């Protein structure tokens, strides 16, 4: 090291520890939402994510767990090239707690003004606003439309990506190519389940004037572990039962009447390809806005239906008041057909027949629905916004829609209403 470099190095250290500069190096901030939600469907619970175990309706009259959340973020900027971010979020989780979890923790390298690399944990940005769907203040609604945003339970991924930004005339283009793995714990029947995937994603965001357009595609090799349906140590768990040629029913091994490995292979999510794609568009000239999105999940035929969903929202800004309206729909693309067995063999011990269990899983994963929502946002004070939203939900025939914990009196394919009051804040 030359003397000059030594001096520069020493100066860098001095600058880095001087308090005035430290303020620029580290930044702490946060966001949150406090929301109360009520549902008119009293024989089931309304949820806004794929991981919430309960909600308003049957379990609670007024529930704060649907949209409430708090997030803390630490940003560090070493220089124009290296920066990092850590974000911790507390919201309603699979185990009915608000245990904080790490939503982001990555290092960013801005190699040139237009080329950046990130490595670590990043948002799983399958849809137009996935990157900031936790930040109520930054979106028009109390929650992003469930028809699209309940598709995929993954919120973050661990890996790396490359971002490339360039301009063509007055049009700004941003490409992002990433790869990695992701997992999330979901509330399973009588147990905790985990959904995980590995793969790559490509997105393009185009901005011009008041218009923003975004296209996204990801392909994941996915696995769903749920001890309730595929516990490998329990020969009578549905997927295992389908795979065993011989079963022991107490008086010794006998041929398994349910032996059907092809059916297990078809529906069980073990290293299956799942794709998510979306097209989103926003036009926001200031005094009004319109935003819409079309999303689809596809891939191998598995126990999750392939579906297409979309929504369109329009709002008008009158000073601090922003009334808005949304229409949304989610339709299944694959018709889930379940062939019932020709003969009911029956097993001793009251073990549910695997066919019935699988048929039940297939029925439960049907989330086709449509909705209309009206809402009002009021930016009444700096960093605070109050919102009221009323949703008319209609479950499609045979569908559970966004409902969980369905009770015996619950009927499929019915309409219900959801009312929400929320306070969004930044700090």
């Amino acid at each position, binding site marked *: 090291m030359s003397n000059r470099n030594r001096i520069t190095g020493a100066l860098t250290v001095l600058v880095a520890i001087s308090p005035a500069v430290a303020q620029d190096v580290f930044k702490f901030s946060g966001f949150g939402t406090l929301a109360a939600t009520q549902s008119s469907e009293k024989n089931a619970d309304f949820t806004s994510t794929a991981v919430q175990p309960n909600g308003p309706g049957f379990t609670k009259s007024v529930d704060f767990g649907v949209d409430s959340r708090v997030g803390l973020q630490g940003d560090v900027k070493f220089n124009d090239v290296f920066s990092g971010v850590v974000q911790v979020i507390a919201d309603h989780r699979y185990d009915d707690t608000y245990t904080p979890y790490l939503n982001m923790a990555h290092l960013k390298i801005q190699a040139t003004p237009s080329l950046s690399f990130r490595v670590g944990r990043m*948002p799983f940005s399958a849809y137009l606003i996935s990157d900031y769907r936790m930040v109520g203040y930054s*979106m028009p609604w109390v929650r992003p439309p469930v028809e699209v945003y309940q598709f995929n339970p993954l919120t973050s991924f661990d890996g790396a990506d490359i971002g490339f930004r360039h301009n063509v005339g*007055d049009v700004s283009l941003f490409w992002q190519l990433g790869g990695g793995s992701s997992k999330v714990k979901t509330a399973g029947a009588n147990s905790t389940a985990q959904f995980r995937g590995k793969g790559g994603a490509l997105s393009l965001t185009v901005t011009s004037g008041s218009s923003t357009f975004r296209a996204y595609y990801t392909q994941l090799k996915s696995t769903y572990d749920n001890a309730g349906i595929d516990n490998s140590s329990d020969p009578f768990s549905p997927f295992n039962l389908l795979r065993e040629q011989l079963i022991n029913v107490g008086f010794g091994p006998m041929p398994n009447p349910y032996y059907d490995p092809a059916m297990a292979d078809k529906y069980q999510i073990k290293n299956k390809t799942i794709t998510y794609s979306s097209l989103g568009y926003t036009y926001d000239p200031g005094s009004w806005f319109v935003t819409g999105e079309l999303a689809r999940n596809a891939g191998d035929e598995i126990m999750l239906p392939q579906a297409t969903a979309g929504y369109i929202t329009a709002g008008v800004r009158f000073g601090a008041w922003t009334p808005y309206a949304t229409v949304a729909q989610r339709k299944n693309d694959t018709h889930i057909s379940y062939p019932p067995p020709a003969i009911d063999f029956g097993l001793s011990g009251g073990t549910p027949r695997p066919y019935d269990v699988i048929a039940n899983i297939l029925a439960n994963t049907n989330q086709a629905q449509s909705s209309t929502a009206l809402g009002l946002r009021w930016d009444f004070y700096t960093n605070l916004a109050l919102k009221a939203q009323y949703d008319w939900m209609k479950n499609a025939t045979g569908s559970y829609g966004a409902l969980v914990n369905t009770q015996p009196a619950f009927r499929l394919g019915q309409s219900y209403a959801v009312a929400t009051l929320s306070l969004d804040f930044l700090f």
Partner: protein
Amino acid sequence: MNPKTTLAALVISLGLALPAHAQVVIVSAKNPISKLSKEQVSQIFLGQAKTFYTGGQAEPLDLPDGTETRNAFYQKTVNKPAAQMKAFWAKMEFSGNAHAPKALSAAEVVKLVASNPKYIGYVDLSAVTPDVKVVFTP
């Protein structure tokens, strides 16, 4: 209306229109750029362009939150009032995608802009010095 009040009204309206409080966008006198469009300025201040059209690095500087000049600049250039700019930076920062520009006093903005051609700022016309040049008036 008599001629005297007409004259008084004219003087008042001229007084209000006087550019002393007009916001102007400035770059270093050393920057080769002489003029930017509203769209170009808007993209740089929203983090959608990281370079000037000449290819040189562009880093925007803000005035403090809540100041009249800042609110007027964003309303005229980006068509967004303060609350919408807050929502915009909340989504950029909390998604880990970009950071809001550094906020400094008008004197500091002028000083930094003068010192390095990568900086771009907006100040009241009255704060402009010979070391910086006006490239856009919202």
